[in-house]
C-alpha cells in the first residue's frame, strides 16, 4: 500500500461529516462564487426556465390562452425541412465567422504585440469598429455592399472591373458571405484585444529559449505563442462561437434573413417565428434546440481541450 493510498483511505468519518468538513475547508471558494451564481440565477434563471416552459406550450400571438402541447413543437421542428436548412446555414455562418474573427484578431494582435512606434494609434484605431453600435455597423456594411449606393461597387466601377453594380446581399448564393464579412469586421477587435492581452502575458524568455533552439518566427508562433495562448484561444473561440450562433443584429439589419432566407440562422428564424409572428412556443422550442446544440458543443469542446492533461 502506497503512502498515498494509505492517507486517502481514511474511512472512519461518516460520509456526511466528510462532506461537511469538505465544505468547511472550501467554504471560501464557494463563498467567492456565490454572488455570481446567485446573481445569474436571479436575473436570467427565470427567463431561461420560462423559455423551456414556453416550448411546451402553444401560445398563439393573438391570445393569452396557452395550451400545453408537450413536445409537439420539437417534433414538428425536427420533422421540418426548414430546420435542417437553418442548421446548415447557421453552421456555415458560425464556422466562417468565428474562423475569420480569430484569424484576423490573431493577425492584428501578433503585429501589435511588440513595442512598436505608433502602437497606441494602431491599437486604438483597431478598436474603432467595436465602438460603433452594432446595428449601425450593419447598416454601413449594407451600404458598402449595396449595388447602387455602395462604396465597394463604386470602387469596382471606377476600376472598370464591373459595368453594373453587383448586389452581393441580393444574391442567394453569396449573400451570407456578404453578411459574414460584416460580422467578422464587428467581431475582430474583440478577438484582437483578447489575444493581445494573452500575448502580453507570455514570458519573453520563452521566445528567447526557442530562438536559441533554432525556432523560426513561424515555429515560435506555432510552439510557443499558440500553446501559451491556448486557454485564451479556447475561451475566445468558445464564446465567439456561442455569440456568433446567437447573434442577431447584423443579419437582421443587413438582409433580414433573406434573400429567400439564405442568410437566416436559427436565431433569425426564432425572431421571425416567435416575436414577429407571435408563435412564442415554437420560438422557444427553437431556442431550446439552439441551446442544446451550444451546450453539447461547449462540453465537447472543453473535453477536447482538457484531454491533453490540461486543467479546465
Amino acid at each position, binding site marked *: 500500500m502506497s503512502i498515498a493510498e494509505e492517507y486517502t483511505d481514511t474511512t472512519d468519518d461518516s460520509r456526511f461529516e466528510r462532506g461537511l468538513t469538505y465544505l468547511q475547508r472550501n467554504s471560501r471558494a464557494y463563498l467567492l462564487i456565490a454572488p455570481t451564481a446567485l446573481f445569474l440565477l436571479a436575473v436570467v434563471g427565470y427567463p431561461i426556465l420560462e423559455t423551456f416552459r414556453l416550448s411546451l406550450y402553444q401560445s398563439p400571438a393573438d391570445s393569452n390562452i396557452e395550451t400545453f402541447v408537450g413536445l409537439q413543437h420539437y417534433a414538428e421542428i425536427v420533422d421540418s425541412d426548414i430546420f435542417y436548412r437553418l442548421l446548415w446555414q447557421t453552421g456555415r455562418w458560425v464556422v466562417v465567422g468565428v474562423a475569420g474573427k480569430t484569424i484576423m484578431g490573431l493577425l492584428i494582435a501578433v503585429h501589435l504585440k511588440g513595442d512598436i512606434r505608433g502602437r497606441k494609434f494602431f491599437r486604438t484605431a483597431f478598436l474603432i469598429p467595436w465602438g460603433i453600435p452594432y446595428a449601425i455597423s450593419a447598416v454601413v456594411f449594407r451600404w458598402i455592399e449595396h449595388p447602387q449606393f455602395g462604396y465597394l461597387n463604386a470602387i469596382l466601377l471606377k476600376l472598370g472591373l464591373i459595368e453594373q453594380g453587383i448586389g452581393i446581399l441580393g444574391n442567394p448564393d453569396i449573400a451570407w458571405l456578404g453578411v459574414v464579412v460584416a460580422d467578422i469586421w464587428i467581431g475582430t477587435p474583440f478577438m484582437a484585444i483578447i489575444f493581445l492581452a494573452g500575448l502580453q502575458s507570455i514570458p519573453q*524568455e*520563452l521566445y*528567447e*529559449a526557442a*530562438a*536559441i*533552439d*533554432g525556432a523560426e518566427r513561424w515555429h515560435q508562433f506555432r510552439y510557443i505563442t499558440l*500553446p501559451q495562448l*491556448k486557454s485564451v484561444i479556447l475561451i475566445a473561440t468558445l464564446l465567439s462561437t456561442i455569440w456568433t450562433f446567437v447573434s442577431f443584429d447584423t443579419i437582421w439589419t443587413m438582409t433580414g434573413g433573406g434573400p429567400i432566407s439564405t442568410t437566416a440562422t436559427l436565431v433569425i428564424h426564432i425572431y421571425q417565428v416567435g416575436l414577429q409572428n407571435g408563435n412564442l412556443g415554437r420560438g422557444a422550442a427553437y431556442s431550446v434546440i439552439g441551446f442544446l446544440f451550444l451546450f453539447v458543443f461547449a462540453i465537447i469542446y472543453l473535453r477536447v481541450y482538457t484531454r491533453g492533461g490540461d486543467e479546465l
Partner: protein
Amino acid sequence: MSEVTLSNVSKVYDDDVLAVNELSLTVSDGEFVVVVGPSGCGKSTTLRMIAGLETVTAGEIAIGDEVVNDVRPQDRNIAMVFQSYALYPHMTVRENMSFGLRLSGEYDEQIDERVEEAAELLEISDLLDDYPKQLSGGQQQRVALGRAIVRDPEVFLMDEPLSNLDAKLRTQMRTEIQRIQEELDVTTIYVTHDQTEAMTMADHIVILNGGELQQVDPPEQCYDEPNNKFVAGFIGSPSMNFFDVTATAIDGGTRFESPDVALDLGVDIPTGDYTLGVRPEDFVAGRAGEYIDTVVDVVEPMGSDNFLYLETTGSSMEVVARVDSEYRPHRGDEISLGFDTDDMHLFNADGERVAVTELQTTESV
C-alpha cells in the same frame, strides 16, 4: 570554424546602465572558457549578446569568420542554458529537451535516443513525462542543461548551469559537461560563480568586474599570478588576505612595513604604498615571531580543513588562514603566521600586480 570573437563590445541598457564596457575577447575553436565575476558584473549580459538575445550597443561579435551582430539567434547555431532555466511550461521534460532537435528535423528515433541518453546522464530519466512545474529547482536546472546538450551546436553558452545542484551531482555533471564538450569539440562559454568549476573546467578563465575585463588566463595563472588586486581577491576562497604596506629602500633590497607585517626582501622596487597579499592556505601557522602576530578569533572546522579567523595584534585586522583539520587552536590562542615569499603577492597603488618573484630573480642575478 566556431571561434567566438568579441571586439570592443559594450552594452548599455535602456536606462543607461553600462553593463558591459568595451569587452574584447577571443575564444578559440573548441576552447572551454569560464566567465566569472561578482554578481551583476555583466556575465549574463555578455552571454546574451553572444547568443543574439541582447543587441550590442557598440563593438562587434563574430562567430567563426562572420560578424553576427545582426544575425538572429536562431541562425547562430548555439545552445544555451539560461540562468533562469526558461523551460517551456507547456511541454513535458521530454518535449522541452527534444524541441530543438525536432525543429532541425532529426528523425524521431534519433531524437528519442539522444534525449534519453542525456536524461540518463542527468539522472532525470524518471521525469521525462513530467511538466516543469512538477520538478524541484535542481531538476529544472538539469532539464535546462539537458535541452542544451542534446543539440549539436557550434557554441555552448551556459549560465550558471549547476548552481542549484548539490556538490555530488555537481561534480558529476561537471565531468560530464567536460566530457561532452571535448567529445563534440564545441566552443564553450560557461558562466559560474563556483570556484571549483572555474578552476577545474576552464581552459581560460575570464574575469569580469563592473562590466570590464580584468584578466583572461589559464586557471592556475589566474590563481598564482592575478593581474590585479581585484582578481587576487576574487579568485580563491576564502579570499586572499591583504595588508597595506609601505615600501622603503633598505640595504640590498626593500622593506615592506605595516602595523602587522614587517618584511625585508632583496628586491629593488620603487618606494611607496603597496598591497601585500597572502592566500589563507599559504600561511604556515604556529611559527611564532614570524611575520604576523595574531590572536585566534574563530575556528571553523570544514571537515577536511579548519579555517582560522584571526585578528592581527598590530592593527586588529581580520586574517583568514586555512590549516589542516588536525591543527585546532582555541579562541584566544596567540598564533604567529608565516608565509613563503614565493607565495606572496604584491600590488601597486593602482591595484596592479607587481611581479615580486621576477624582481627577486633579477636582484639575485
